[in-house]
Each structure stands twice: as C-alpha cells, then as structure tokens.
C-alpha cells in the first residue's frame, strides 16, 4: 500500500505492507534509527514518537495509520541546529546512561513541556511513567526535565 507520511517536516513515501509497524517504517524504510524498541507488549516506551503532535508508542501503531499524518522523531529535536532544552537538560543532569530509553524519554518530555512549561516533580514522574529506564533510577531524568523547564529559552550549543 502506498503511504505518504510527513516525518520531521518532510514528506516521505513508501510502498508498505499494512502490517508494517511505524517503528520499522522509521528505522528501516527511512533509516531514522534514533527511535528504538524494547518490548513486545507496548510497555516500555522506547519507541515513543509524536503522531500529530501527541507522543505515542510507534511499535503499537501501523505505518499505514500514519499515512497523511505528521510524525516527529528524536532526530528533529535539534533540527534548528541547536540542542533542544530537553536534550541539553539530559546532558547537564546526567539523565541518561546507556542512552537506549533516551529518545523515547526526550519525546515524552518535550511534549510535556509544550503542554505544561513548569511541571513539578510529581507531574514529570507521572508523564514519563510509560517510559521504562533500567539505568538511571529516574531521579536524574526528573532533574533533567526540570532543567529544561528552567532553561526553556536558553541558548544551547550543539
């Protein structure tokens, strides 16, 4: 089936099977390997991307469902040339270790801050409760998102 998906602002087309998962369309068809996958049962959130501005699990979305829609992945966060404050926050506050859950966390965090620019720690924890991490114990991720909230307008260098 022919699909047209706008990914990170650019129109992409593909001829795909209906069963192709969005995460595979991104990783394999488009070569955007920043989005990861970590489970079979939609629990881990490593595959989180935006679909029409809303963070979703791309392993539980078919590529054909994104036909005619907008997808945003981690690769778009520094599209302007500078790191997004969430990316800088994760660096500054050691919000990542192995980096595998990180793209998903970043997309969830970015969506949270867009909707709620000044969330408290409890709100952040709730927002990322669908993203599992095995390395950080979450505390520094919460701090990283707080950093991003506090440096929203900060100039961050790539």
């Amino acid at each position, binding site marked *: 089936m022919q699909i047209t998906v706008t990914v990170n602002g650019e129109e992409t087309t593909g001829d795909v099977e209906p069963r192709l998962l969005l995460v*595979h369309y991104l*990783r394999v068809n488009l070569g955007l390997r920043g989005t990861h996958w*970590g489970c079979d049962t939609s629990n881990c959130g490593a595959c989180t991307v935006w679909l029409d501005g809303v963070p979703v699990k791309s392993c539980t979305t078919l590529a054909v469902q994104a036909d005619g829609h907008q997808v945003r992945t981690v690769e778009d966060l520094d599209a302007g040339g500078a*790191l997004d404050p969430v990316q800088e926050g994760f660096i500054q506050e050691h919000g990542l270790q192995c980096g*595998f859950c990180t793209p998903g966390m970043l997309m969830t965090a970015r969506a949270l801050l867009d909707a709620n620019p000044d969330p408290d720690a409890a709100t952040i924890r709730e927002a990322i*409760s669908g993203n599992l991490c095995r390395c950080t114990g979450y*505390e520094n991720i919460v701090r990283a998102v707080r950093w991003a909230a506090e440096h929203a307008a900060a100039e961050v260098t790539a």
Partner: protein
Amino acid sequence: MTTVEAPLSTAGNPIGFGRMIRKEDARFVRGQGNYVDDINLPGMLHGAVLRSPYAHARIVSIDTTAAAAQPKVRAVITGKILETLNLAWMPTLSGDVQSVLATDKVRFQGQEVAFVVAEDLYAARDALELIDVEYEPLPPVVDARKALAADAPLIRDDLEGRTDNKIYDWEAGDAELCDEVFARAEVVVAEDIVYPRVHPAPMETCGSVAHMDKVTGKLTIWTTTQAPHAHRTLYAIVAGLPEHKIQVISPDIGGGFGNKVGIYPGYVCSIVGSIVTGAAVKWVEDRSENLMSTSFARDYHMHGEIAATREGKILGLRVNVLADHGAFNGVAQPTKFPAGFFHIFTGSYDYPAAHCKVTAVYSNKAPGGVAYACSFRITEAAYLVERMVDCLAFELHIDPAELRMKNLLRPEQFPYTTPTGWEYDSGDYPRALRESMRIAGYEELRREQAERRANPSDTTPLMGIGLSFFTEGVGAGPRKHMDILGLGMADGCELRVHPTGKAQLRLSVQTQGQGHETTFAQIVSHVTGIPPEDIEVIHGDTDNTPFGLGTYGSRSTPVSGAAAAVAAQRVKEKARIVAGAALECSPDDLEWEHGRWHVKGDPEQGKTMQELAMTAHGALELPEGVEGHLDASVVYNPPNLTYPFGAYICVVDVDPQTGVVTVRRFIAVDDCGPRINPMIVEGQVHGGLADGVGMALMEVMAFDEDGNHLGGSFMDYLLPTSMECPSWELGETVTPSPHHPIGAKGVGESATVGSPAAIVNAVLDALQIRQADMPLTPASVWRAMQGRPIRPDLAVE
C-alpha cells in the same frame, strides 16, 4: 567535598576527578547511538529463532520443508545441521555444555530449536510458523526443592554417567567451629529465605550481526557483549576459527547488567547463517526471548542460621543454599568459585564462625544465574546476611540499627580477613552507618513510627524502617585466584599520546552506560594533566583494543581503571625523562605541577605534557628509558579485590487493608573510595536502587507446574517505573583502597546489592513479622499478614 577539586580545563572540564558532563551523551541525545539493531550492511539477512513451547520434551521430528520453500527464506538451520559442524553444543562459561539448537530434547520453555534466515525480519518470523516440530512432552522439574527427589525426571541425560540433577556441592568456612559455636550459643535464629529468579532485562535485548567474509576468511561480529575479547577467544575455541581472523565489535550497548556476558545460541546461529548464506546475518531477540532464554539471575533458596548472645553479639552465621541453575550450568564466574563470591555472606560484621554449603541443581528452566548486577552472587550473600541480622533483631527485640552498630567491623580491624577467606581492604563502617542515620533522621523516624503504632486504625498506613549494610568484593581479580575458562581476569589498556599532546586510551572493558568514555579520560587526566576532552577512550573492538575479560562484577574501575592509572603514570614518568633531556637537567631535579614538569625552584623552566609529547616524537636525542614516544601499555593484575560498602535505610508505608507498599524514602550512603566523577557515581547508585525496588516489590520469574514461564513479557515481568521510585537521598564516605593506584573501588553494582534487603526489612518492620519473601507484591504482603505466605517461584495458589 571529599575528593580534591581538580583545576578546570579551558573547556570547563575538571583535569582529573570531579563532576563532568559525559562525552558520550552528544550522540545519544540526538538519537545517533549505534546499537546492534542499528547496524545495516549491504545484502544483510535477518535471522529468527524457533523456540520450544515445552519445558521438557523429546524431539521426535523437525520438518523445515515448508519454511525453507518460502521465497524470502534463504536458510533454515537445525541442530542436525549444526551437528555436522560440531556446533550443536557449545561449552558454557562453567565447564558444562549447552545446546545451541536442540537435537535430542528440549530442556526449558523457550529453548532454541531452529534458526531461519530470511530477507527481512517479517519474512523470518513468518517462516517460524511453518516449521513443524513434533514433541513428546516429558514431566518437567520446576521446583528446585524437588530436583533431587528420587523420582525426579533426569534432565541432563546428554551427559554420560549422570544419574541425577545435581551439579555440585560446594562449601566454604569452618563447619566444625560453627557446630561448636552454635551448640553453645544463647540464641540461635533459623530462617528460610528465598532470593527469587529475576532478570536483568536491559532496555536493549541481545543480538548480533555476523559477517563471514568468504574471501578473506575473516569473521566480523557486531554483538551485544560486555566482554568482546572473551567472546572472540571462545568463538575461536568453539568454532575452530583462527582467532586472528575473528573481530568482535561491541557497538553502543543499551544496558548490560550481566545479561550480555555469555554467548547465546542466537549469536552462534547468526555466524553459521552467515557462513551458510555468504551474507551478513542479523539476529536480534525480542523481549520474550530475552526474558525466557537469556541469563536469569539469583534463584537461591537459602536456609540461614545466626548465633548470638542475648545482648546481640553475633557469634556465627551458617547457611545452606539450594541453587537452581536451570537446564545447563551457564553461570559466568571465576572457575574456582562455582558459587561465585557467595561466601562473602559473612557480611560486614565481626564474628569468628561461618560456614556455607551450596548445592546446585539443574531444572527445566533457562540457564544462567550470575547476572543482574549480582557481583558474582554477592547480591544473594548480602541479602542473606542482612535478612538474618534483622531476624536476630526481631527475636531479641533490639533496634536493627543498634544491632548492626554493635557488630560492625571497626576501622582498626582493616585489612580484615573474614572467616571464609576474603581480605577486606579498608573501611570505616560505623561512620557510614551513622551518616546514613543522620541523613534519614533515624531517631525521628522511630518516634513517628512509635506514635503511629500507639494509635493504629484499619486505614492508617503501617510505617516501616529497614536497614541494609553491605560489603562487596569487586574488581575480579588476581590471576592466580581468578580465571574464567582458564583466561586470567587481568585487564589491560594502551595509552598513546600523539605529537600534539592529545591522547587515545584503548581499553579492554566495555561500557553499557556506565560512562567509561568520560571517567577513564578523567583518570588519565588526573595523572597526566591532559584535559579530559583531549583524551579519546576507545573500547569495544577486539582489533583495536588490548585483551581483557570485560565489564561485569563492577570490575572496570578497580581493574581497567587501575591499568589506566598505571599507564598514565608511566606516560608521566617518560615525560619526566624527556623533560630532563629537554631542560638539560636530571629528571630528579624536576617537579610536577598541573600537567607540567618544571625545574625545582624555577617554575619558569618547564615543559607541558603537550610540549613533551612533541619533543618525544621530535629530533631531540632521547635518553634511556624512552623510545620515540610517551606511550605505555599495561596489563593490570590486581593484587586483591576492592571492597566498596554502604549503609542504606528505607522508609515505607504499607496500606494495612490492601498490602500496597509505598517507598516513601530511600537513603543510601556509599563508600567506593575516591569518586572519579561524582555525578556518574550517583547515577550508578540511583539505577541500582531502582533495581532494589523492582526486586523487592514486583520482579519475579515464576513457573507453573507444566514449566510454563509466567514472566515472559513486560506485562508479567514488571519493571519499576518513575512512579514507584522515590527521590533518592544519597550520601558518601570515602575510604580509599590501599592497594589501588587511585584508591578507587568500583560502584556499579553496590546499590543493586544493598537495596533489596533494606526494602524488605522495611516492609517486614511495618508488618512486625519476621519473614516474607520478595517480591512483596500487594498480594504477598497481605498473605504474609495472614500468616499464609505466597511462594514466589511457583504459580500463585
């Protein structure tokens, strides 16, 4: 601050120890990490493994015709085919053999039976369904406690002469002394304690991309391994391939935690697939495969006895362990220690009598046992002793902090040789415990608890305070004591300083998130004064790094870190010789300051490391002791392990009606010696504490009576989220290791080792009962309160 403040480089990084943001983050936050599943080679094919639905069954027949006939399928490999290559079985890291693809029987649910290679992942998975396997089910051994029963089914009938499911008996300590001490003791408390089967479950599953180049005869394998060199040597031995023609590459690894130490059948199959098809073959397991077939952790059924005086002076501790190893003995641990370092179970206390006996058995479950940050079974040991100490406190009605303080080893006793032969290097234990209690506000917590207990109600949450004091032995290890399959556990590094004064450090250890690219640069920076941003850390490629046994058991800083420090020291000393030549004085007349050798008393007369690097590569006539560079290559054979320790306190609230446990606070004071990068050390601790919450409250791999794995997905094997973890409160003490070049001890597994007991002790304290097993799910807590505990390793009844 307990670490010396280092001066800052022009980039703002500490030239040495201190808080520094990580170099590796730049790629990860952009989604530019390079993990195994990101690797894409021209013409690459995809593999998938067919797995057994049965826990124990004879294989009657395997028909791959339909699968092989699929247009996109390029090969279907079975055990029969592997037999012709002598690869149907492979040696494990424990001297046993393990099936690569089953031939006679399957021995655990999820065991590998066939391997499909196809043009894409979807076609490979489709083809699995077309393979027809006829099984003849056999009764499985699911309960370790029944593995040695007279009528237990024999699992390892592939091994000649085997008549039962016992793997070994192993002992340490002094049984006779224990008998005497226990016989005389005023108080003896006995308890049965299970450390259930759990799983490291890193966010990235295991996988490999294998490429056998037919023309050059070179095998390149990108793979999720914490020990690339060990894998290379093993492939050479197992597959008969010449070792100089094998290149093992660990790209970025999405978490290891001991899950990525061993060689899994899927890797071997991907190699065979590449040999058979002539193309590169990628195999990445899915999550259920990861949970059901890769190295689990723990599964220790322990019976402990603690002897003491009525006042609470511990006199002895002994324990019998039944260890469930699964269908093959595949534990990854030093050869001389089949039960790993479990005999460090004597813990952090001062008493003379100790003995342990470990009986290991086979069962119809996946192989493994040493994984999930266990520090070679120290998680089990620390859990046992810290639970037993609390059981003693319970019986004697002594506050658990007071009981610990009474028995902790004193600083003047170090170095201390334990009753089972460990030589603890250094520690001020009472100080760490006091610090932990100070941060927690221990007295006030007990007051709050007392008030609540004075006014109980149906709905008032029960408050619990639990402690754990642990000592680990990490940094395996001295060659004469520690080898894995005959490969000594020394590790090396090569430090090269380029003419412009920038450096490259090549390591044999392998980060999976611990920050080596940053911390090892900081070690070299600390010694040489070269800014860390000017030091590139290279690891993970066996063609480009020195030999070593890899990262697990928190050994990177103690072993490779030491190697890096020694290498850096040698570089600095070579620089001194060059400086002497350049400044026309004796090297003994030189003084070191901030990365520069200068004439004593005349700071103007000096040369920086950068200048000396150029000089070493230049035209100056070099004296003896220096060839045309400053480079150094070191293999570090540690004289001993290092012994980090910590004092943890957990505060919980338990809903008395539902059994739901909320972790209110967790205070962790760790001592890992000087902290190279405090930010990274704290991150390691945070992660391990979350592991503790997971294991104490929700993680378990249970099996039903048919051998069905009840934790084969993230719907059933529950990992803690941000909601269950509190905001961790950390503290530190610093007791350097006297034998380590920079005094550092390693910390990667400390929190995983120390935290479960603190949480379990807290819950039991809340309930005012002596014992219940992890995980303390709401149902487990409630049933424990009813006096009808749930056994965690079997299906709930």
